[in-house]
């Protein structure tokens, strides 16, 4: 009987713990969690160490934290400070996310509520754009951006990131819109609202949690994007990943400064990741796994 219980727990959905399997679970889970978190500890502590401590062997565990690396990275380090890149990253993520969410929500609503010729094919084509490898698009995109004279501009990255995030927004929000009881919208129709008014005044407020989650995910993807930023910008519109890519030119010496910028690049994401954790799996698998 005990054996059967333990087996069932192994194989079926969660059931109460039994010694010693429970302890073993804790041990494995804790070790794995530690493995997941350890590099974050390294990023932050390296950013807070003095240069001597950074290159020490064996590694130094007890040290007096200093903000020198942060100060250097933000205000002193090589010609252009990281503040400039931070601002570019923020502007580009926020504007591209805004566009992706607004345009994506509109399309998502149409996919959820109206029927039209070729709807299924169109929806699945949009889904497949999620798999577009930036590296395969970078050559044509570079020439296109060059031709319209938008190299090193915010607007080029904003539009590219909007396109990159549209599939995510449309697919996630389509699910959210479909879950609204249709009667609410029908009632509004009887009250004389137009279709577009219903979308904006009735449906959008009802899917606010979905909009917040997809917005956070889109913002993170824009914030993290490296290749387009690296190739399409140089100085004026360069984002944080472009700054970090400069590490290879620092002769492998400026660890503290780059880890400080790395900390600033990662900390906001950690906060937001927690905020969307409920919808994370759904978002990253496009609703395939809820």
């Amino acid at each position, binding site marked *: 009987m005990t054996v059967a219980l333990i087996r069932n727990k192994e*194989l079926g*959905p*969660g*059931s109460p713990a039994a010694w010693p399997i*429970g302890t073993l*679970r*804790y041990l*494995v*889970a804790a070790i*794995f969690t530690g493995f*997941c978190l350890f*590099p974050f500890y390294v990023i932050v502590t*390296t950013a807070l160490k003095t240069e001597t401590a950074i*290159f020490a*062997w064996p590694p130094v565990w007890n040290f007096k934290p200093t903000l020198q690396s942060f100060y250097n990275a933000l205000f002193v380090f090589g010609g252009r400070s990281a503040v400039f890149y931070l601002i570019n990253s923020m502007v580009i993520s926020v504007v591209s996310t805004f566009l992706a969410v607004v345009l994506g929500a*509109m*399309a998502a609503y*149409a*996919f959820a509520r*109206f029927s039209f010729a070729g709807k299924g094919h*169109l929806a*699945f084509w*949009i*889904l*497949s754009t999620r798999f*577009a*490898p930036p*590296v*395969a*698009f*970078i*050559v*044509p*995109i570079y*020439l*296109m951006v060059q031709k319209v004279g938008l190299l090193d501009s915010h607007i080029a990255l904003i*539009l*590219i990131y909007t*396109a990159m995030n549209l599939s995510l927004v449309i697919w996630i929000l389509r699910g959210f819109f479909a879950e609204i009881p249709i009667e609410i919208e029908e009632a509004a129709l009887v009250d004389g609202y*137009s*279709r577009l008014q219903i*979308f904006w005044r009735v449906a959008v407020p009802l899917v606010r949690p979905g909009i917040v989650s997809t917005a956070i995910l889109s913002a*993170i993807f824009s914030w*993290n994007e490296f*290749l387009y930023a690296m190739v399409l910008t140089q100085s004026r519109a360069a984002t944080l*990943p472009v700054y*970090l890519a400069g*590490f*290879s030119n620092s002769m492998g010496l400026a660890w503290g400064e780059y*880890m400080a910028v790395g900390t600033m690049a990662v900390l906001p*994401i*950690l906060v*937001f*990741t927690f905020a969307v954790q409920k919808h*994370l*799996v759904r978002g*990253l*698998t496009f609703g*395939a*796994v809820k």
Partner: protein
Amino acid sequence: MKLAVEKRRATWVLIAPALAILLALNLFPIVYALYISAHYWMLARPQPPRFVALSNYKELFFDERFRNAVLVSLKFVALAVGIELLLGFGLAFVFNARLRGIATLRKLTLLPSLVMPLVVGLVWFYMFNENFGIVNWIWVMLGGTRVPFLTQGTLALLSIVATDVWQWTPFVMLVFYAALQALPEYVYEAARIDGLSGAQIFFRVTLPLLRPAILIVLIIRAVDALRSLELVFMMTKGGPAGDTEVLPWYLYTTGFLSLDLGYAAAMAVLMLALVTVLSQLFVRQLESREAAS
């Protein structure tokens, strides 16, 4: 009648902007890449591109470096995704229990999933350092001698695999965990009543029910691993001697260091063909789900 017209108009007003952006920045670049790949097209040269039909593709066929890049990419994807799926699968069962505190641990593990890949490359580059890296320190503590993790052929690739495994195993685990949570209890009760043993339940009930989740996560991870170049950029730059030169890295350097856009576009087209096959498998999977629901 008026209502129908209004509905059609609303549909197009809602869809057109998103569609226009996707056509301009997804469909058009694919067509343009095909066009570029049929030309000898050097960046920053005054001469206009010259039409060469399929000769870029012919050249790729005999290019040792291209062959190497494809092989390295396949090795990287197979190893990284293989390990992530096996580990993630096992760990999903570990976390799938009603134990106090285990949900908190599970939520903490999702932190690597959305971290900027370039920072992941930076910190693991630091940890794998031969002279002061923490991985080496642990290795020496365990009684080994210092290892040049990133400058020795096979090891360099394995180090990048390990880094990718760090970032993506939690995501794979969470997908399997969610899938396990969604399994209906009554199926297990039925299996128990039928007298199936634990192993039989696993192979005949759990595994078949998890098949869709396995396929979905496999395809997502395979495409994402195939297209990523941040870790290579940060940790090895394709070295030593091309041992970590994955296809995206070779494509990027061909286009923007050698400035041979035509040749890079030919590689891009082949890569797109491969990714299209994989994404169609994904689409099929979701389509059959929609049809079922």
